[in-house]
């Protein structure tokens, strides 16, 4: 793959390139993707669409690996240089999905893409906004008071509004988490961040009004799962039964009864963690969480060792994105978080998500490849 290109540039560069790559990050990413495929096969093997799902997953993976390699090879500083184009393009995509998008499950998140199925611009938007916000933050050297945070809040608010309109509450919340983490690492005072959070809390009633009925039901179902046992609460109760019944060692791969009986809706997408929890038990679930922790450790390490402020902020944003996805998604299946419908990175079936997370991994590698000397 990239090796051929690098080797042509000379033996010295080749050796250096080889050593600069974060092989732990690549290894742990590969393990997570493999784990996801195992869980996908296990959760769908009893259904007739299993071969089709697996074939689609292979295509997603191939495209995702290409994106990873491409992102690793491109200098992240050049990417940041194109921030304006990326930002406008992202907004256009988000408007596009509102205008021409396809509705699935009550939300308009997809743009049809022929044989590849659909593309979900809100997934790619997360990574795009990490890049543009990093560039934006890099342009200012300090964030001395609360007012200096406003331009960045506005930077995120516009795409967030479009995403909530789709409506995709989960992704909008991810953007909020990314914004907070990046502002913090860029030097915002914790008190100012808290102030912004308080301001956001004030707008909650407004947010409640623009939510769709099903989103309100999900939030309410989180607060009181018994209130709607067959709707959102149903998924929660069944998800908890599945995971809890896995006990320490799980029921064994391909033996989950809850998933087989299709108790769990969307079990190969947003609820894939229930498959792990039920079939591989506490051990399997813990292994998965540890893999994510290792991934996040590497991401923050890349942030810490980045050549410049831009790289550090960008890497933090990517780490925050993955962290928030994992915590909210797993928390949701455990009944700790509302059912927001955001995917589990690398694991959930879904091409846009896999493409985005692998490209994000590539971007981390790009920052790593150009890190501070001696770090």
């Amino acid at each position, binding site marked *: 793959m990239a090796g051929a290109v690098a080797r042509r540039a000379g033996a010295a560069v080749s050796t250096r390139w080889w050593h600069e790559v*974060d092989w*732990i990050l690549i290894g742990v990413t590969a393990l997570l993707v493999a784990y996801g495929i195992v869980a996908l096969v296990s959760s769908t093997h009893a259904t007739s669409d299993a071969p089709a799902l697996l074939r689609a997953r292979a295509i997603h993976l191939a495209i995702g690996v290409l994106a990873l390699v491409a992102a690793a090879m491109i200098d992240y500083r050049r990417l940041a240089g194109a921030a304006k184009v990326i930002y406008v393009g992202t907004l256009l995509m988000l408007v596009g999905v509102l205008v021409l998008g396809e509705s699935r499950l009550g939300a308009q998140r997809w743009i049809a893409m022929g044989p590849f199925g659909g593309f979900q611009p809100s997934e790619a938007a997360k990574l795009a906004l990490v890049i543009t916000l990093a560039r934006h933050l890099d342009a200012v050297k300090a964030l001395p008071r609360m007012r200096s945070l406003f331009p960045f809040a506005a930077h995120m608010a516009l795409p967030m509004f479009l995403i909530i309109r789709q409506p995709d509450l989960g992704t909008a919340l991810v953007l909020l988490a990314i914004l907070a*983490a990046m502002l*913090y*690492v860029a*030097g915002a005072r914790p008190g100012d961040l808290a102030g912004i959070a308080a301001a956001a809390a004030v707008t909650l009633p407004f947010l409640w009004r623009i939510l769709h009925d099903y989103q309100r039901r999900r939030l309410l179902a989180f607060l009181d*799962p*018994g*209130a*709607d*046992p*067959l709707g959102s*609460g*149903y998924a929660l*109760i*069944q998800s*908890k*039964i*599945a*995971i*809890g*019944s*896995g*006990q*320490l060692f799980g029921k064994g791969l391909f033996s989950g*009864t*809850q998933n087989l*009986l299709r108790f769990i809706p969307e079990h190969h997408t947003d609820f894939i963690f229930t498959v792990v*929890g*039920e079939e591989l*038990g*506490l051990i399997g*679930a*813990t292994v998965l*969480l540890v893999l*994510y*922790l290792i991934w*996040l*450790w590497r991401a*923050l*390490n890349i*942030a*810490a*060792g980045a050549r410049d402020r831009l790289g*550090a902020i960008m890497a*933090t944003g990517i*780490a*925050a994105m993955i*962290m928030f996805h994992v*915590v909210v998604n*797993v*928390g949701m299946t*455990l*009944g*700790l978080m509302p059912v927001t419908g955001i995917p589990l990175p690398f694991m959930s079936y879904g091409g846009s998500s896999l493409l985005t997370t692998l490209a994000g991994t590539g971007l981390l590698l790009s920052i790593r490849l150009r890190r501070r000397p*001696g*770090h």
Partner: protein
Amino acid sequence: MTGSAWHPRILRLGVVIVLLFLALEGRLWSMQAIQGRYYLDLSEQNRVRDLIVPAPRGAIFDRRGQPLVTNRASFTVSVLPMEVPDPDRLAEVLAPLLGIERQEILDKLEAGRRRPFESVPLRRDVSKTIVVTVEEHRIDLPGVIIQAEPVRQYLLGPFAPHVLGYLGEVTEEELRTKNGYRPGDLIGKAGVERVYDDVLRGDPGRLQVEVDAAGRPMRVLGRQQARPGRSMVLNVDSSLQQVAEAALRGRSGAIVAMDPRSGEVLVLASAPGFDPSLFSGGISQANWRRLTTDTNLPLLSRAAEGTYEPGSVFKIITGLSALSEGVVSRNSTFECTGQLQLGQWIFHDLAAYGTVNFIRGVQVSCNVMFWRLGMAVGEPRLARYAKALGLGEPTGIDLPAEAAGLIPSAEWKQRVWKTPWYPGDTLNMSIGQGFVLTSPLQIARMVSAVAMDGKLVQPRLARRILAPDGTEVSSFASRETTVPVTLPPEALRTLREGMRAVVNGGTGAAAAVQGLDMAGKTGSAENPRGIPHAWFAGYAPADSPALVVVVFVEHGRRGGEIAAPIARAIFEAARPWLAQSPAGQVRP
């Protein structure tokens, strides 16, 4: 690999991440290691069941707030399909106990398999004996449960069944075409229950319960309250309706009473009727067969779904069209010799009345005069006026089924009968015979238009919708239009003078109520099925109409002798109603 120390802020971010993951791990530990056995039990035995909690259906009231239909508690024997190890054996045991066919039980179980964790009702409104017997045989009847469920209660007995309608289990067809119903649900099948099903039915609640090995609910895991349906207030006046139904007892026929100003239907009676409570817990095969095979057609609403020859009542149209088209005036005279010669045929009237003017001709219902008027106006214009006044088309009343009736034309006759329109056809049409078919409700609407200077109202049963707490949600207003023909005031005045004469010493004298200025027209409609139908259609007070009454007695023979006295009883009973008009009505 980490050459130098992390920036403190990145480090703190890392600490936050570790803490969040520890929280997830802690939760996993508690669910899988500590509560794991409990969840395993739930999952292994599939012990979570969904029980449907039926929503109480909205009540139906008459215009003064008198409850007509409410709910009463009953027991339903249901089954949880997942819990049934041997459907054949279950059907074997249950069929004789519940008094239903084995195949019916098997069919319902099969239909329920699509939602295997939801209960399927087998028999509603079972007796206490059945409840006790089922409970005693629990062990032999795994998966069978008894649920409390409200069923319809008809407070006035067999009252206005064609208006109220009845419920039945939703059919495959309805499941496909309507949203929000499950197999076994009850749905309005006729009358107001059907038209306003969406209003009356609430949203069923659900109970997610943990069940024991026999499928008995042990513990409630989740609960969704049922949302009761909204109630309907009808325009029907139950005391007037009861007078009408009493008057029709022992006969076949229909009575309509309507406010011509608003289209509010106060009476819509049809005889013979039936007892809607037969349908309360699901109608038995035997009762259904009895109702559907009865040659007196008790399920048919004669007021809205039946169409009959209007006979001389149709002379209102003939007279109105002739007056409006200027072919006759109040003082034109006619020789009522008792017969009319048309080519080689002689048409006979019932009697000879000598020389009459238009008013007298209406009063005595002189066929010769109306034959001559009909010939002068011609079939196309007769049909145009008839249709303009709403005959030959549904009235738009809020009922699920309504007949269109028929106003014939030369083109129609050529198409259906393959014969040309003869002058004799025009004569027959002029006196409401031959091919003309109308429903009593259409006649009421037509008479309203005459009484109200050409204002054509949509008859309406629904008055208001009430929330479960009794507050008004919305109220109804009738669509009203003006007839699409020009009715000169002079023409209307002359026709109405004739109709007043009918009740004052004319063929409809038997309808007269002491002290009430009335107008009307009788009809005795010959028909191919037997004795003529008796009709009376009229309104009062004559100068400010507040009530239109149409009485139709199938094979009643003479309108003036049979229908008019019934109309008199209705007007008599409606005195309080007429007394408060035109000052406006009291709202319930």
